[in-house]
């Protein structure tokens, strides 16, 4: 380490001696995990393949393009989802304006009748297109909706993790969630959701993590990204595997993309 860098480290330590040694608070850990998992970069584009697998290994597949943009200076986000497969929902698109503290604005475009409709958004806990993931699993849950406790710190595989327990403040179909959050990347590596009988009901695993450069000319900035993840319904044996391909951060997604215009005329150069 050069003398200059060493001096910088010492200065940094001196400026906040206690913060450097104490672990962040549980809510801060969850906040950082959300930032790493849902908010990386200014915007993000990916081709998403969801495979729905029944307990007896019958599969169904959904392929979609996901465009996502963080609204500057807020926790709000905008999503545009365009379905390529299966055939009966090909061309269907969703536009979601997500607000952590209130109901999302959501619109659907139904190509067969060329119609844009607002859809009720109270169902953030319901299944996303028939998968084991809920809308909330896809776009994140309000950090202040749960009470977070740091249970312990332990290794999961070769990764040092915080183990956080999150208990919903309002009645939800699960009673608590345990999350293993990587200390280095703050990505959730495993999440366990327990039901009212305190039995494991759903299990999330981050199966593949890829370092994705953040934009073409930002070679030094890298976002570790969960490019393969699984949500399993432990009780029924049904599971959904999700693969993110062609992930691009800071693609330059304009705010105008996230409007009714894109529903009515899908932005061809972004969705192909």
């Amino acid at each position, binding site marked *: 380490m050069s003398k200059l860098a060493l001096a910088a480290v010492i200065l940094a330590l001196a400026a906040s001696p206690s913060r450097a040694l104490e672990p962040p608070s549980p809510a801060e850990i969850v906040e950082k995990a959300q930032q790493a998992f849902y908010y990386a970069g200014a915007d993000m584009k990916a081709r998403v393949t969801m495979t729905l697998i029944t307990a007896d290994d019958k599969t*169904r597949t959904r392929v979609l393009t996901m465009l996502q943009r963080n609204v500057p200076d807020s926790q709000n986000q905008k999503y545009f989802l365009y379905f390529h497969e*299966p055939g009966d929902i090909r061309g269907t698109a969703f536009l979601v304006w997500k607000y952590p503290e209130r109901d999302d604005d959501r619109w659907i475009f139904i190509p067969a*009748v060329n*119609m844009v409709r607002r859809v009720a958004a109270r169902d953030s806990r319901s299944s996303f297109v028939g998968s084991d993931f809920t809308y909330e699993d896809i776009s994140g849950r309000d950090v202040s909706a749960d009470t977070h406790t740091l249970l312990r710190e332990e290794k999961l595989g070769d990764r040092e993790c915080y183990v956080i327990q999150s208990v919903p403040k309002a009645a939800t179909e699960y009673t608590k969630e345990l999350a293993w959050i990587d200390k280095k990347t703050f990505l959730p590596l495993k999440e366990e959701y327990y039901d009212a009988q305190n039995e494991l009901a759903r299990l999330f695993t981050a199966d593949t993590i890829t370092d994705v450069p953040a934009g073409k000319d930002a070679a030094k900035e890298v976002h570790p990204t969960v490019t393969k993840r699984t949500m399993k319904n432990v009780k029924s044996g049904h599971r959904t595997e999700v693969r993110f391909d062609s992930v691009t951060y800071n693609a330059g997604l304009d705010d105008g993309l996230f409007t009714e215009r894109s529903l009515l005329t899908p932005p061809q150069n972004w969705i192909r």
Partner: protein
Amino acid sequence: MRIGPALWGVLLILAAASPASAQDSDAASEPKVHGFLLGALSRRTTGAQPARGNDGDPVLEEGRVRLDISGASGSGETFFLAKGDLLYDAVVKGSDVDLREAYAGHAKGALDFRLGRQIITWGVGDLFFINDVFPKDWESFFSGRPMEYLKLGVDALRGRYSSGVVNVDLVGVPFFTQDTLPSAERFVFPDPLSTVPTRHEVTPPARFSNTELALRLYRQIGGFDASLYAYRGYWRTPGVRLDNPVSPTRATFFFPELSVFGASGQRNISGGVLSLEAGHYDSRQDPRGDDPGIPNSQWRLLAGYQRQAWEDFTIGVQGYAEVMENHGAYLGSLPAGAARQDRIRAVVSIRLSQWLDYQTWKLSLFAAYSPTDEDYFLQPEVFHKVTDTFSATLGANVFGGHTDTTFFGEFEESDNVYAIVRFDF
């Protein structure tokens, strides 16, 4: 066969799709070809025979092959779509082509144009249409074909301007398309003109001065998706002119001039979606409302609310009303013994949908009841997605009413059950 003017749309599409006209530096991507096979079977359950029907109870017995071809230039700015069905219909024992949409489009910046046959859906109602002045195929819907066949394309030029201040859709329709109403080949209903020996129909000829214009201005206002609408064109269901009102020998069906002004709004409220819509129908060829062969001017009003009650279960309720403007003049003009409409036609509806088993099953019910007409319509349906490419639907259309002269009541003898299978490729 609905092809006619759309042919020029196809030609334009071919021109747009040819590499020479794609002025983008990147090569155009390969056109995508998709489609499905659809089998639809629907049978009347009442035993009644339509006036021009075949023996037995078939309403639908058809097989369709859908082809859907789309593509875009390298930049994505120029694009085209053509989709249509080749079909065999055993009820009328014939094959046909149903060209659903065929258009070429260009979108750059704030501007977006489409030329050709295109389906346009406006307004916020669920099966109640106020500012959606575009053609519908009610025969298709009431016989059990999938919902997408309720809408018919218009042969039109549509331009759109999008901005943060306001979005503008302007549609010019030079070629008139009428609604498809339940026909006497498939549906049983009383015909008040059954004794008239000669009938013919006149549609507005394709002239520049006959071009229909439809305008929609929309933006968000206070959490509402708000729209203003204007339309100048024609009623899509015919009026009638008789050569002699006492003992007619000739009935001429024609499409009276119509203008519509309206507004709609939709927003989230209490975890659900509130929809409001209103429109004024100005029947321009019957300004005093005293021509019994032309629909009266009227107001149309709609309020609806939809929300999810529990996981994968949504409930939607609507109240709808048509208020006749010159009811007194209308009553005074009716010939003796003719059926009378009330000044207000009100309808309430409910739609229940429950998805089950990872959204592979859907149970749904649409029910509409009119307290003024005292008639009703029910459509229960079970949909099962067997695999990603194969689905099956079973349902029924049930009509009833106090008299056989009201909108749903006249089809009391046309109840049917339907089965649909669809295979996507």
